[in-house]
């Protein structure tokens, strides 16, 4: 065994390095403040290992990325590893800040360690770019929206901006090439660059550290000088254990976030990650052509200013130098915190932003919920939410219907409109909705026909004439009849599923004393052309036909008020306001049981 190790050492000389490390000393002895450096290094190693493992599953394609990340999260180990990878990236940025401020406040950058300082500072923007290129890889709405803005910021740099933006995006717009470029940067180029800089950085640290010489060891007059190994190393490992403990806790408890898959049809206001908030706030004070001052010039000036520190600060121990350094540290920390805080406070007061964020959180949760039961097809995870009536229904309703129709229930505000001019469609086809419609008081109210030209039409007059309490018939008996007809129609709509005796009575009433078939067709009685068909009333296919062409003979014909044809041309689906799939989603949502808040 011994001979083997000797053989290896003769060739590699590894004992030299080990001895060097174990005889290294820190100028002021070991301390907790020095642990940030080693912690950063080991986190970098952890990032490389977890990243490599994730690469074994992740697929950088616009269609598959989200699904593959979701797939990783399906095993507890995968979820944990991705969690560590995510939280460690945030931890590294915090530790980097701590590390730089520690070096700055102690003036540890001075000759001959200028290159330690400069390579270290250069690592900072690289690390930021590393996280920035990592965030969009899951092709989540948030990640893609962020990189879109970040690419645009890059593009607004004078001269080289447009070229750099095109290089990053792989074209004019975000697309498949953007993702492969980001992936290339994240797992290819940046690790090489960071690795190279780290090598120089560590080489310089080792080269310019003091070591115990044989003289020191021999002299008995000096007190014992504590070497790096193990006196500093044990502190390093304790700090690292605490940090990794925190990371593991979050990774185990929450996993890494996976926001809803990116869909260009969804609006989203991206906000940068917390470490960019100060720039986000700073940028608000510049506009147009001067914006690059905030996004490029100021950060670069800071970086260059810091880099110049070893060449400016040549006073070794003067108290003034100490005060200056501490002032700079306090100013940087204070300025950063101040801008960051303003930005968060501003968003905290912005109700529209908060509402949108809450909405997006719901969307993300919904996507994950759907992914549990629904398969992700070759069209990608984007289809999860696009095929979901609960998600698309309100969006389609708001876009196409809400300008006239409200959709708000008695207990839920739902979707309200400023100037309703058509019936409230909340619960259309349900017994309650139809009962309200046949109510002599309510039919002419804003809830139903109040703001349409049917306000004084035959239907309104019929309901007000027949169903109002005229004293001849008991109010209770009348209400019972109305309820029976409402049940019959709800059964017709296939919303009320059980066909009861009351429904049978209701159907008879519709055809006889209810007087409905005088104008409406209902199965074998009545004719079309005077009022909407009640056969198959409010079923999915009835609603689809109605919305497609309300002016069809089966519905309002030329009596149609203002409702547009939403899909009048089956031959040219691209020219219709709503596609067949959109209609299905909208109608499915409209007909959903209304026990839950929409």
């Amino acid at each position: 065994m011994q001979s083997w190790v000797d053989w290896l050492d003769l060739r590699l000389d590894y004992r030299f390095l080990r001895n060097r490390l174990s005889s290294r000393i820190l100028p002021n002895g070991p301390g907790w403040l020095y642990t940030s450096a080693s912690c950063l290094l080991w986190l970098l190693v952890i990032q490389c290992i977890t990243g490599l493992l994730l690469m074994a599953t992740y697929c950088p394609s616009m269609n598959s990325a989200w699904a593959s990340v979701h797939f990783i999260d399906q095993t507890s180990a995968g979820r944990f590893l991705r969690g560590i990878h995510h939280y460690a990236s945030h931890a590294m940025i915090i530790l980097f800040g701590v590390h730089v401020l520690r070096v700055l406040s102690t003036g540890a950058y001075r000759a001959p360690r200028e290159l330690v300082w400069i390579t270290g500072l250069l690592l900072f923007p690289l690390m930021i770019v590393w996280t920035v290129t990592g965030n969009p890889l899951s092709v989540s709405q948030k990640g893609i929206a962020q990189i879109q803005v970040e690419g645009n910021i890059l593009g607004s740099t004078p001269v080289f901006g447009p070229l750099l933006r095109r290089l990053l995006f792989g074209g004019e717009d975000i697309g498949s090439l953007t993702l492969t470029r980001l992936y290339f940067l994240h797992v290819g180029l940046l690790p090489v660059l960071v690795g190279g800089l780290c090598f120089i950085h560590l080489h310089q640290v080792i080269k310019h550290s003091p070591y115990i010489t044989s003289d020191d060891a021999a002299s008995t007059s000096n007190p014992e000088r504590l070497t790096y190994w193990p006196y500093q190393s044990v502190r390093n490992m304790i700090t690292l254990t605490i940090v990794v403990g925190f990371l593991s806790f979050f990774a185990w408890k929450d996993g890494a976030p996976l926001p809803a898959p990116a869909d260009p049809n969804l609006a989203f206001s991206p906000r940068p990650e917390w470490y960019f908030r100060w720039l986000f706030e700073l940028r608000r004070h510049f506009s147009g052509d001067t914006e690059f001052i905030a996004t490029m010039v100021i950060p670069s000036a800071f970086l260059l200013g810091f880099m110049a520190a070893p060449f400016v600060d040549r006073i070794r121990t003067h108290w003034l130098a100490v005060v200056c350094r501490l002032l700079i540290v306090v100013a940087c920390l204070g300025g950063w915190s101040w801008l960051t805080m303003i930005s968060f406070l501003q968003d905290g007061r912005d109700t529209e932003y908060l509402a949108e964020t809450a909405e997006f959180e719901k969307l993300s949760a919904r996507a994950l919920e759907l992914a549990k039961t629904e398969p992700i097809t070759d069209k990608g995870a984007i289809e999860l939410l696009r095929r979901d009536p609960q998600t698309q229904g309100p969006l389609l309703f708001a876009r196409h219907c809400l300008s006239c129709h409200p959709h708000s229930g008695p207990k839920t505000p739902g979707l309200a409109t400023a100037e309703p001019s058509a019936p409230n469609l909340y619960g259309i086809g349900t017994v309650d909705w139809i009962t309200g419609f046949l109510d002599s008081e309510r039919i002419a109210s804003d809830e139903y026909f109040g703001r349409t030209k049917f306000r004084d039409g035959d239907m309104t007059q019929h309901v007000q004439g027949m169903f109002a309490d005229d004293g001849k018939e008991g109010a209770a008996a009348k209400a019972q009849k109305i309820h029976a007809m409402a049940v019959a129609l709800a059964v017709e709509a296939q919303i009320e599923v059980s066909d009861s005796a009351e429904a049978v009575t209701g159907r008879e009433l519709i055809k006889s004393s209810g007087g409905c078939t005088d104008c409406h067709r209902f199965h074998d009685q009545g004719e079309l052309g005077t009022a909407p068909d009640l056969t198959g009333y409010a079923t999915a296919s009835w609603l689809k036909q109605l919305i497609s062409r309300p002016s069809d003979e089966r519905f309002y014909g030329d009596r149609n008020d203002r409702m547009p044809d939403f899909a009048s041309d089956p031959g040219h689906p691209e020219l219709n306001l709503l596609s067949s799939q959109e209609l299905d989603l909208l109608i499915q949502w409209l007909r959903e049981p209304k026990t839950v808040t929409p």
Partner: protein
Amino acid sequence: MNRRELLEWVSRGLATAVAMVVGLPGVNYFLGGTQQKRSSESQFTRLLKVKDLVPGRLTMVPVMGQKVDAWIQSDQQTIGRVWLVREADSSSETGSAKQTVRALSSICPHMGCQVQVQTGGKSFVCPCHRASFGVAGQRLSGPKNGDRNIAPRDLDELECRLVRDDETGDNWVEVKYEKFKIGLDRRVVGA
């Protein structure tokens, strides 16, 4: 030049040549892949019937077309969105060709976010940095007192025409969809 110097220069030259063999195609590879084939001239796209536009209401309509994303070509994709505004004072419901419809690009000229209709439906607002615009696309001062409008120019108005389909007698809104560079105070075609 002695023999030693000559050999030094030859070595350097050869090393450079070998580096070029990989380096030049490397640069070209990165830049070349980004040159997207431009779909000739942007053409007018038929969006919807004039009568489907409620006067005075701001309506967002997706513009469908062919999209080429690197190695994937897909038809009937959303290539952009426009906000259509039909003048509120046009009285007739049938949509005669005289009525005016204005088309605005939905892309905020500041950072390229999608502008939304502000609560109340009488103006646009960009959700990213709260730039707000009137129905004609003109910049308005910020929603809160003292807020500056961060947008460098007004919303981009797109060429829009009303075309009568003689077969059916319908009037259609057609828009020439184009993208303009963001962040500039003037309009330059290009993403």
